[in-house]
């Protein structure tokens, strides 16, 4: 009886992939592409269902143990079919289109969500993930919690700004050696800086390399370096040695270099964004008591 249900459901998924999924026909084998989306699947309790992820899905670390289907824009049709997935999850960056067509023709349900860094997009994404995972209430709770944490963060920033001036910030997309790229006005970097209460000093669009002189002229009070390797004083000293212009800024003189996980900058709003914001804000407003784990839980 149950087996018949499952088989029937499976057939329905295969034949009518665009229908709203009934609870007994939930997709059981997922391939997820897009770091933030994969993280949300894990947060919402769907990690067991993942059979493959793309190269941008590196959080939590357990995901790196799964078979990799390559870069999300260069998926391979047969490679994904070899994992026998019911569902391929991804953002609008997922591609190339002919491969998605082939996968759809082979009966894989393609679920394309948006990677835009906006709260209402996130709400729609979580709602859809909740449906697909069969836990809509859990997805709703997760979103409410997320929203509450961002609100708390905002209040904290407003509170801090009463006593301290908003610092001028630059975010560098670091790589050792060459000149780092600076996050401009229309980037996720800009969004994070503003949400954490800083002023992005860069006025260009996208990520562009700035000359040493331009960097000195902007004279940031805080420099955020998006580089996982920047842990500890030795790494910071090495960074300043490689970029003498950076060493001349106010941020370096006052020791206000913050390291940020670069994966927070891609793929839209992931579950770790509030943590990243709290960390940045604490660095921007050192005189205020940082948001603790307990404070985070308060609505």
């Amino acid at each position, binding site marked *: 009886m149950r087996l018949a249900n499952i088989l029937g459901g499976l057939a329905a998924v295969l034949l009518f992939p665009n229908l709203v999924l009934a609870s007994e026909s939930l997709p059981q084998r997922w391939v997820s592409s897009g770091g933030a989306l994969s993280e949300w699947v894990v947060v919402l309790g769907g990690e067991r269902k993942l059979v493959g992820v793309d190269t941008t899905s590196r959080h939590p670390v357990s995901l790196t143990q799964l078979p990799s289907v390559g870069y999300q824009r260069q998926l391979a049709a047969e490679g994904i079919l070899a994992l026998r997935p019911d569902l391929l999850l991804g953002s609008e960056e997922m591609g190339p289109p*002919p491969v998605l067509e082939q996968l759809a023709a082979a009966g894989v349900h393609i679920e394309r969500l948006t990677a835009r860094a906006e709260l209402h997009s996130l709400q729609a994404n979580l709602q859809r993930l909740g449906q697909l995972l069969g836990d809509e209430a859990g997805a709703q709770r997760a979103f409410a919690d997320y929203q509450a944490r961002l609100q708390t963060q905002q209040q904290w920033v407003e509170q801090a700004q009463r006593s301290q001036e908003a610092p001028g910030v630059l975010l560098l997309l670091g790589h050792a050696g060459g000149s780092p790229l600076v996050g401009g006005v229309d980037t996720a970097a800009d969004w994070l800086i503003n949400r954490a209460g800083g002023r992005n000093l860069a006025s260009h669009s996208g990520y562009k390399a700035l000359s040493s002189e331009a960097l000195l002229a902007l004279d940031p009070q805080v420099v955020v370096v998006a580089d996982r390797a920047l842990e500890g004083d030795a790494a910071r000293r090495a960074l300043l040695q490689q970029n003498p212009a950076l060493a001349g800024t106010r941020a370096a003189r006052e020791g206000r270099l913050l390291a940020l996980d670069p994966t927070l900058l891609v793929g839209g709003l992931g579950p770790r964004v509030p943590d990243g914001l709290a960390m940045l804000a604490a660095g921007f407003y050192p005189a205020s008591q940082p948001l603790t784990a307990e404070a985070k839980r308060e609505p």
Partner: protein
Amino acid sequence: MIPTLSTRPLFIALGLLLMLVLWLSLALGPVNLPLGDTLRAALRLLGLPLATDDAVQQAELILAQIRMPRTLLGLAVGTVLALCGVAMQGLFRNPLADPGLVGVSSGAALGAAVAIVGGAAFGGLPEAFAPYLLSLCAFAGGLLVTALVYRLGRRDGQIHVATMLLAGIALTALAGAAIGLFTYLADDATLRTLTFWNLGSLNGASYARLWPLLLATLAVALWLPRRARALNALLLGESEARHLGFDIERVKRELVFCTALGVGAAVAAAGLIGFIGLVVPHLMRLLVGPDHRLLLPASALAGASLLLLADLVARLALAPAELPIGIVTALIGAPFFLYLLLRGRH
């Protein structure tokens, strides 16, 4: 035209190799299909009324929708790149010539960069047209730059091959600068698309994209062998070939046009795939000698086999992910080229 006694076994071997590789390309992939199912599915696709079940149906789907177009694409791209390589080495009388010399590759790369980075600006295009924008731009770019190189190499109604070669180098550099500018303007995501395109891939082959390339390949494969004697005469030098009674200006024009058409279509369908056009003619010249009547068909067979083998590596090495095929052909091609170079010294 008839292979001599000494080369006949070689052609039989090359033919058998291609057959084998074609079969491997259909039978192997990340999805592990049992040999029996693959065979039955292949026979059913050929129209034999065999019994079917779920497993055979899955095999049929994968064969017909994924592996078959991909194999045909590899066959066409490998053939046309190798043939055009022979044509260019014959035209420039230089074993280092490859189809890129007349600017078709760099022109196509520039067209692709325009399409990838500027694609958003073409937002108003009809929906049906958008998926082909990249291929069309690459093809048009290749043709345009080649036409320009050809035009620059012409003086008093004659094509000066040396001038054309230098013009090709200059325009390649110019196109490189323009691509660099687009790279600078690109955001992270388009940058990666551009990088991957430059490494080539047979991934996502579909029949709709295949037909133009198949036609171009057929045209080149039928036309170039008709000019084999003229290419042989060109080996002696242009004036000698002219004295032998060949209409050299026309032959040169045809060779450049064939290369622009063939390589342009190949690059538009599969991105930039290096080394096939350079290494395969070389290798075949060692085996069959410099006679273009033998060299052209041998290169076509070997080019297709080599490209399909490289694609097998590309799709199996990191499965379920995929390696760009340009990496594989360069990994095979570059050491082999070095080997040829060092061997020639002794």
